């Protein structure tokens, strides 16, 4: 069985269309990882015997793959436990190391909580944070961002693609203006890498977060890109210990995980070019089917500036929680916090100015490497059936 089919065959349960939440490990990635649990168990910090230096070599190979995926140098990659840690390290690490330069940082209202909450904590500790709003299409206006910069601004953090609505901001433009003002730019690139072109030089990005489990690698391993030249980013660690990863991220390296991240990065580089148009076509098929079958469906955020694998819609006259609960055979995410009982829109939908979470359901569809046209048709049909049923249930 070819690896793709093998992976499909092992995906049991509801039709999975939530690839922004996480992805299955590609069987080729798993195969690369397996020896590093058992026979090749060495600690890369132990360089004087075979088990140690073998592990060290595997880690360096993975480092080179991750670097190549984003157009960086291998020595600019720091391995972490995932993007939450990468975002924390980037933002805290830079602000801590650059106290003399300033105390101000700028981010955007639709960022992931791992960025927003890190900024919020820094604010509690005396730093100054400006959160720039987005336009109705979910994109941040570079002019507006530029207006927020002050002579004391050290860092700007703007994600490369949004994890809910899939919207892609004008990052290269933002990078150019940050560079011109001498401000560092961090980008949470978790959802973008392997899906849309992401090159740290083309985007003028100085720090970038990635995580393996969003690109067919294992959970609990990620990386932070830290520019070493033009400019050289000054960083402080946020945990202390044995000095691994140039002292920026001490702790024994997760060798199997890192090997998995490297293998996933290599596959992403090889296959992204072919995968993007296929996913965009399937996404178009889903959107066409939903529009044809249902009244009152709209896309949240720009459809043009969007990840090829994302569709995020609001559907009038249906409750989000009721819809998600009814779709037992489809794995998708709701765009509101209804499931947690509050019925409030997510911070991303709120930032877009959506005040109708009480009378509309929002759904996030994330397509991926193993999504088929049949699955898309099935999901469109099931969503249509449940929306019609729930609307009939409510009609008085």
């Amino acid at each position: 069985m070819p690896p793709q089919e093998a992976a499909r065959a092992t995906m049991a349960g509801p039709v999975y269309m939530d690839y922004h939440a996480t992805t299955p490990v590609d069987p080729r990635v798993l195969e690369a990882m397996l020896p590093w649990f058992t026979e090749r168990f060495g600690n890369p910090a132990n360089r004087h015997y075979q088990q140690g230096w073998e592990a060290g070599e595997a880690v360096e190979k993975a480092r080179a793959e991750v670097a190549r995926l984003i157009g960086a140098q291998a020595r600019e990659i720091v391995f972490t436990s995932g993007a939450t840690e990468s975002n924390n390290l980037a933002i805290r690490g830079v602000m801590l190391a650059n106290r003399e330069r300033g105390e101000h940082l700028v981010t955007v209202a639709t960022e992931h909580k791992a960025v927003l909450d890190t900024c919020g904590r820094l604010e509690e500790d005396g730093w100054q944070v400006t959160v720039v709003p987005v336009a109705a299409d979910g994109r941040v206006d570079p002019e507006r961002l530029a207006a927020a910069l002050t002579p004391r601004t050290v860092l700007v953090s703007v994600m490369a693609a949004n994890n809910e609505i899939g919207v892609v901001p004008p990052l290269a433009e933002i990078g150019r203006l940050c560079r011109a003002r001498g401000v560092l730019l961090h980008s949470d690139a978790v959802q973008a890498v392997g899906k849309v072109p992401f090159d740290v030089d083309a985007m003028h990005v100085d720090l970038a977060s990635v995580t393996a489990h969003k690109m067919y690698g294992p959970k609990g391993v990620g990386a932070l890109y830290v520019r070493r030249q033009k400019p050289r980013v000054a960083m402080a660690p946020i945990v202390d210990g044995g000095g691994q990863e140039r002292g920026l991220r001490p702790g024994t390296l997760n060798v199997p995980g890192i090997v998995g991240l490297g293998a996933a990065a290599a596959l992403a580089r090889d296959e992204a070019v072919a995968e993007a148009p296929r996913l965009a076509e399937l996404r178009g098929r889903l959107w066409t089917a939903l529009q044809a079958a249902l009244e009152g469906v709209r896309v949240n955020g720009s459809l043009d500036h969007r990840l090829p694998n994302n569709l995020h819609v609001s559907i009038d006259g249906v409750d989000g929680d009721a819809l998600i609960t009814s779709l037992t055979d489809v794995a998708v995410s709701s765009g509101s916090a209804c499931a947690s009982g509050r019925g409030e829109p997510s911070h991303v939908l709120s930032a877009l100015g959506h005040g109708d979470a009480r009378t509309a359901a929002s759904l996030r569809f994330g397509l991926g490497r193993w999504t088929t046209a049949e699955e898309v048709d099935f999901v469109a049909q099931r969503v249509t059936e449940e929306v019609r049923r729930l609307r009939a249930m409510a009609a008085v």
Partner: protein
Amino acid sequence: MARVREMARVGAWPPGAGVGTGDAGAMAEGTFVRIQVRRTGEGVEAVYKVFGCSAAIASASLVTEWIAEGRTLAAADVVTTLDLPLDRAHVAAMVVNAAESALASLRGRELIADSREPRAESREPT
């Protein structure tokens, strides 16, 4: 939450002498429920329409079932039976309110109908 997918008692009857209707909430506020009841010989049957979260839908399904069984309705029992999170208790209460006003409206209509019924003595020639 299998009740969310159940359609057995979803429906509406045209309002009339034998039908009691009770509403609670408002669609614009995120939860609306209408319960209707009518007599079936000795008992009562109930149907519902509902807009809202799965707790609202499941509560409406359960409460209309209880009406048919002749059970006393209490929001607390709905919460425990459906194992609802505490922040959904008000939704169960809303559904019970709608059911109680439906039953009250049925009794009210029956009283009015009774009082309009020509009395035996009034048919006697005067």
